[in-house]
């Protein structure tokens, strides 16, 4: 069974492409301090006379600035690598924290029903209609101090309902299975039933949610930083690089926007390819349908 799934994975071009893209980006992010030609946030290395240099293959480009420099003289390639670190940090933190909160609340409210379920589901309805993006923007807009932590917090405060909702749905359908009644009949405790019999069977749909959510979180961080309410100016972020670069596109300095944009696109595109494959693998009937 396991090897069959692996075989199908290897055969699926988009799944393999997605994973490869993600792995390359992840390696770039993790080893940024080693790979990056420059440390873009080391003030001693910045020279204003190096600012707004074009890429190395264009006229006026110079080594080691392969993809050119921004308005502060920072090496674009290095800043992108450091920016990817922020993206991955936010992505992983969000799915881990929101996932844990959501899975716990979803499991409890599906298992015990009652008031907890009603409150959670009404809250989920309200949050869904306002959207995570809008609430995060307003939350950070009111907040005065910004850092990576507050960005993660702003996303997590609403994002957990995605997991809670999916989890509750799976719990409700799994709960009535014979093996759960059997476990209860032999005297298993509630906790044991939840963790050992219900949770493992409710996990696959959660994986799809997590994959889609990872991409959404990365995009949201970039959007928030683009608007100036995300990570602070002295921290690397792909969204902020695009925000800086947009002032120079009329001057034809496209590399300030295009390369960070491609990096962002690759991360999100990679995870979405993987999510598509996961969706078909777990639920072959619905193919490439729902996105959130």
């Amino acid at each position, binding site marked *: 069974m396991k090897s069959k799934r692996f075989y199908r994975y290897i055969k699926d071009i988009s799944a393999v492409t997605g994973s490869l893209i993600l792995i390359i980006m992840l390696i770039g992010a993790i080893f940024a301090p080693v790979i990056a030609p420059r440390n873009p946030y080391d003030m001693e290395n910045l020279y204003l006379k190096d600012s707004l240099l074009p890429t190395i293959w264009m006229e006026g480009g110079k080594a080691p600035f392969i993809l050119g420099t921004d308005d502060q003289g920072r090496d674009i390639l290095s800043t992108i690598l450091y920016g990817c670190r922020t993206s991955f940090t936010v992505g992983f933190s969000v799915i881990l924290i929101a996932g844990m909160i959501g899975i716990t609340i979803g499991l409890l409210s599906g298992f015990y029903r009652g008031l907890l379920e009603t409150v959670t589901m009404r809250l989920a309805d309200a949050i869904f209609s306002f959207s995570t993006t809008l609430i995060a923007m307003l939350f950070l807009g009111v907040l005065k101090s910004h850092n990576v932590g507050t960005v993660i917090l702003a996303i997590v405060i609403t994002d957990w309902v995605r997991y809670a909702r999916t989890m509750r749905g799976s719990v409700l359908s799994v709960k009535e299975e014979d093996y759960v009644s059997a476990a209860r009949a032999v005297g298993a405790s509630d906790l044991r039933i939840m963790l050992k019999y219900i949770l493992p069977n409710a996990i696959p749909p959660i994986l799809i949610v997590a994959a889609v959510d990872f991409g959404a979180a990365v995009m949201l961080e970039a959007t928030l930083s*683009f608007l100036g309410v995300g990570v602070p100016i002295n921290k690397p972020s792909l969204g902020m690089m695009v925000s800086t670069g947009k002032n120079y596109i009329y001057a034809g300095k496209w590399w300030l926007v295009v390369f960070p944009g491609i990096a962002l696109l690759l991360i999100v595109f990679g995870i979405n390819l993987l999510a598509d494959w996961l969706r078909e693998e777990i639920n072959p009937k619905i193919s490439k349908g729902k*996105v959130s």
Partner: protein
Amino acid sequence: MYKCIFRRLTQGVVVLLVVSFLCFIIFQFFGDPVLTLAGRYATKAQQDAVRIKMGLDKPFYVQYFVFLKNALHGDFGLSYVAQTPVLGLILERLPASIELAISAMFIALTFGIGLGVLVSLNPRNFMSRIIMSGSLFGISLPTFLIGILLIMIFSVIFRILPTFGRGAVIKIAERWRTGIFTIDGLRHLILPAFTLGMYQMAVLLRLTRGGMLEVLREDYIRTAWAKGLSPRIVIFKHALKNALIPVVTMAGLQFGELIAFSIVTESIFQWPGAGNLLLTAVYETDHPVIVAYVMMTSIIILFLNLLVDILYGYINPKIRYE
């Protein structure tokens, strides 16, 4: 059905109360209104005078009720920066935002559903594959990147479309300034509307395709074909109507996103709408404007959701509104 609408309305009121309470907390605990109004160098006595004048010396719950009462009368106070009533500021900007949002939604629905149907009819052919890859790009590109790429292509490279502001506007019905009746206004609308609509379009396209693929396999569709009905009737009347149910749900859930991304779009294109006003208010810590914007969007979102619920009953009579 009326019972259901009534229940949704009560739920909406509860949500609004919660939102208003959160807004009130923003007012109270983030930034000191006394300091803002009396000025940084006011003496203790002057500060106290402002505090009493604004009722800030009263207990917490009294202040909340005063806030609620004023909000119900449409009084959200004066903008700290512009020193004019906040509601007026927002209402003045709202037409531009509504125009942009409706155009974007129109683009998303027509192209999303249209292409989705097209792709579902021949899922394996070359064109469909291209469209589907395109849609994957559509959901992988954040709105701000779409906007900037469109500017680079259509304004910087080809120089055919403007990227800044609303263009020529004319006034209709007293207050409503609109750009959709002038060529210049329409030209200014194209890029922002596509920027805002692109993501939703990709989402709706994928949903429509998924729904159609499932429905087209059903027995009643085979029967419809066997009866010799024209493709137009089978596809649009028998299949699409049933495939649209999840699409409508999704489109309904997207209003919040649409408003959020309209903030981004308006900032990129300097569109003079409410989203841009909000961003300025955020940068200048103008809390009354933020609070009024939040209340306003909450009401709009809740109203639109109610509308979608009612519409839902029309396309899917199986839903009985218990």
